[in-house]
Every structure is written in structure tokens, then in C-alpha cells.
């Protein structure tokens, strides 16, 4: 049993039409939790408005966001515990162009992928906006999202690592 993006959209709509703040679906060992924005949770997707306020630039030459210091992204998340499948090498998904990275199709919508999500080569993992033009970014590899490094609404440079995918053992 796999969930498609359409299924997720359908589940999201169910929640939106309901009086509840949270909806959890469990199927075949897959657990999906959907929460309303504003509900008291720690890990909701960041608000799209965050993009209008990038961190101010310090005046010293040692700026924290230089490309030479890739650690300037969000603190690395703990690696997903390896599943029963043998975990092959991880592959980085990098930004194909400079622009503003969005993890969700529109403000408030659930992110395309979260850590632990299964992805196919053509699974959309995010959008990069360049002057109002939306460019979709695909996983490019089959596997599981191990780590998401790029922040929603942040400037990503060409070649910057957006997320890491643990490649599926059998290709």
C-alpha cells in the first residue's frame, strides 16, 4: 500500500472540512499525521511568509551563509533509523538553479515530502522559484528521504544540497 500525492491531498481536505485539529491515518505500518496550521504542534511546515525575512547580513567578511560553510542551514536532523531493508548509500538532491526553495506546493499546504517518505525518481520534492517562475525539483532516485537540509522559503544556491535520500537497496 502506498500513498499518492492525490491521496494526501484528499486526506488533507478531510481534515480541513472537519472540526478536528489533527488527523492520523494508519495503514499497513504507514502512519500519516496531518495537523492544522496553528494547532499546538512542534513540527508543522514553516509558514511561507518566512521567506520575506532572510537573516540580516552581518557586516563582517565572515558571513555565516557563505557557500563555503554549508552548515548554515538548519541543524542536521537525526538520521532516520535504518529500516528492515538494507540501507544503501545516500544520494544528495541538489538545487538545479538558484532561487527560493519551497517544500510545499502553496503556502499552508503539506510539504511534498517529509523525512521517512518513500520517493520514486520522479517524485516532486520541492519547488524553486526564480522571478515568479516555479521550477519543480524531483528526487531523481528511488529511496527514502533521510534528511531535509534546505529551509522552506530560503534562498538556495545552485548546487546546494536540498535533501538526502537513502537509496532503495534493490534498483
Amino acid at each position: 500500500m502506498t500513498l499518492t500525492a492525490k491521496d494526501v491531498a484528499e486526506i488533507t481536505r478531510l481534515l480541513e472540512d472537519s472540526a478536528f485539529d489533527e488527523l492520523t491515518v494508519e495503514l499497513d505500518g504507514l502512519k500519516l499525521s496531518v495537523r492544522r496550521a496553528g494547532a499546538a504542534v512542534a513540527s508543522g511546515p514553516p509558514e511561507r511568509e518566512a521567506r520575506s525575512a532572510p537573516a540580516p547580513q552581518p557586516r563582517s567578511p565572515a558571513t555565516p551563509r557563505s557557500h563555503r560553510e554549508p552548515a548554515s542551514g538548519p541543524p542536521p536532523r537525526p538520521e532516520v533509523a535504518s529500516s528492515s531493508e538494507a540501507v544503501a548509500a545516500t544520494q544528495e538532491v541538489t538545487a538545479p538553479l538558484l532561487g527560493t526553495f519551497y517544500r510545499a506546493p502553496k503556502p499552508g499546504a503539506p510539504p511534498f515530502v517529509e523525512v521517512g517518505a518513500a520517493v520514486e525518481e520522479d517524485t516532486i520534492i520541492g519547488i524553486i522559484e526564480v522571478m515568479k517562475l516555479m521550477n519543480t525539483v524531483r528526487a531523481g532516485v528511488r529511496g527514502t528521504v533521510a534528511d531535509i537540509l534546505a529551509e522552506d522559503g530560503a534562498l538556495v544556491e545552485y548546487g546546494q544540497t536540498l535533501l538526502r535520500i537513502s537509496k532503495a537497496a534493490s534498483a
Partner: protein
Amino acid sequence: MTIRRILIANRGEIAARIIRTCRYLGIETVLAASEADRDSVPARLADRTVCIGPSRPSESYLKVGTIVQAALAVRAEAIHPGYGFLSERAALAKASEEHGVVFIGPTAEQIESVGDKLRARAAAQAAEVPVVPGGAVGSVEEAVSLARRIGFPLLVKAVGGGGGRGMKRVERAEDLPHAMQLAESEAGAAFGDARVYIERFVTRGRHVEVQVLGDGLGRVIHLGERDCSVQRRYQKLIEETPAPRLPEPLRERLHEAAVRFAAGMAYRGAGTVEFLVDLERDAFYFLEMNARIQVEHPVTEAVTGIDLVAEQIAVAAGEGLRIGQSEVTWRGHAIECRVNAEDPARDFQPSPGLARAVRWPAGEGIRVDTHIEAGARIPPFYDSLMAKIIAHGANREEALERMWQAIASTRIGGMTTNLAFHSTVLANREFQAGGVDTGFLARLLEQAPMSVEARFG
């Protein structure tokens, strides 16, 4: 407005040079660099570097949307385009303004009108600036009849061309129809604009250009001229100011014509009006206007003491012209040699590679604008300019002597460069006498391909 942060949409020596002035002014710099330039000297000098795309210019330095997006994302108030790349594309000037980012340069409209050779010619005529006899021709019949009036040899030029591209020299009337058809189809393919015009070919001419600065409201001053006649296939190699052995009245007429032309369009920022000085007729003609900072601007800075990049930024920030014409003074003589990664023995083919031991000259009156240090790679994607060596002296002799020493003390290991060729030119008697025409270099290459003549002086 106050400009506190500038996005530099360029690379190489000019990026490093812009950063230097910004530092002096207390302005932060963000370098928009391609993948090949992430670890370049300008990337290290800038306060911050953002990678805008792969090495190929069409995927990085030439992407208008990406450049503006980068400026917005890093919250730069202004974009400095340098020279080349997007510096004379109206699209960047337009997109910048539309998104509230200051374009450090002329308006999109001004870029368009000087970029179109026929419009520029018409603007020159309107400002009573002489143009090379010739004009637009829509058909072979028109071309033949116009050619009869201006005489041969003549040039068939593409309206959208420039810098020597899209030009055909025609010696005889019977060759004109074919040359014209060829030029039209080439211009259509290369510039997306098949229009051509014809001009008298000046057999012995000098390339003299005038540096101007405008406030965008109609006030324009000039900072003197530069002689760029030492060129090969329209690629300049050595530039100097003032232009040697130029009759004083002619020099003044050039300055006045340049100011009239730029003032006629209320030109904004730094620009250069290029002229062809016809040695046989003691006349001069408008060639084109370059709506950007030029490679050879440092010779003007050396003799006037004016920082052209600082003035560009001041005009862009709305401060207008901070110098009056009467305050501009010229001291001594300055000369510039362009050090290129190219092989004079192989028809000046670019020779990219890794610069091993690098030693640039230093000393009284010597300035070096470069982005190359030991271990720097000259990528194959961009132009071959490695450095500009500028020598300033009390007079031309002193400037030349200093340049000779500077070239002699420069060391670039592991690369093929045109350094030795510069020595050949500097040692040439005709060049030392001053005032050579644009055919000088080609003649020099014919007689003595690579031998260095006797010691300078």
C-alpha cells in the same frame, strides 16, 4: 537612497576591482558566481558569494531572472553588472528597476538606443556629432547607389553587431552585392536582426574614445580621452591616455562631441563614446557608445585621480555628479597592457590552464588589476584576460619606461600568455613615437612575428 549592499553580477578582475571600491566606501558586496568561480579571488574578497549556476555563462552570468532573484534574496539595493555579460542588456536594467533594485548603469532605454547602431548614428547626427559617411541600406540597389557617393573601400555592418562582429570589408563595387547578402544572412543568424548599413572604410584611422559621466538629468562631464589604437581584430591590447600626438584643437572637439552626444540623451552613469580619427582627412567620426564601465578605465583613473566605480555608485544612489568639469584635472600619462592567457604564436588562441608561480609587478606608478594568483585556474568558459597592468608617469616616456620594467618583472609560470608580445610592442619604434593607427599591430605581426626588438629606449 543609500546603497549598503551591492550584488556584483560579474567575475574576474572587474569583480575584484568593484569589490575594492565598495570596501573603501563601506558597502557590502555579494558576488554572484558560477560554479567555476566559487573559489576565485573575487569570491574570497566579497563579503558573501552565491552560486548562480553552472560554469557556462548562458546558465549563470547571462541569466537575467537568476541575477535579479539573487539580488532580492540577499537584499542588495543595487546590482553592478561590470562589463560584458549582462552589462549592456536592457533586459537586466529593466528587470532590476521593476523589482526595485537599482541598476548601476544607464537606463534600459539608453542601453537600447546606443546598442542599436542605426539609432546611435541618428542620435549622433541629432547632436551634431560627425558620423562616418554611410547609412542604412535596405537593398542591394540602395547599397550600390550609396557606395557610389561614399567610395571604396567600405564596410558592411550589422545593425545589431559591435566590437568588430558582423562586419565585412568590401574593396570593389562588383563585390558589394554578394557581401551585402552574406552580411544580411549572417547578421540575422548571429544577432537576430538582419538589418545592415554601410560605412566608408577609413584606411588609416586611430581609435580614440572619450570617458563621460552623466547624472541622468542632462548634465554630462568628460574625463578626457583614451587611445586604443593598438588592437588586433578589434580586440584592444594596449590603451593609453592622453592620446599621443593628437592636435590640441582636435582633442577638444572630441571631448565636446562626446559630451554633446551623451547630454543629448541625458545619459546616466559612466559611458564611453568611441571615435575613429581619420588621419588622412584630419577628421573624426562617431563609432559607437559603450554604456558600461570599460576594461581600460584605470588609465583615466590614474591621470584624473577619480574612482570611476565610486562615481557610478554615486550616480546610481541619486547623488548626481559630485565633480564639475572645471574640477577635472589631468596629471601625467598612463598606459595599460592587457595580460591575456593566449598564445601569440598560435594566432592568439586562448590558452586556459593553471597559473603556477605568479608574480605581479609593483612599484612607483604601477597598478595591477587582477584576479589571478598562484594556483588560480583560468577556466575555458570565459575571456582570457588575466590582468591589466597600468603604469602612470609624469609623461609618456616615464610611463612607458615603468611599463617596460613592470612587464619584465612579471612572472607567470605554467601558462602561455601574451607577456613577451607586450615587450615586443613596447620596444617598437613606431609605437614609442606614439600615435599609431589601428593597422599597426597587424603590420607588426607580419614583419616580426615574435621577435623582441632591441632593448627599450
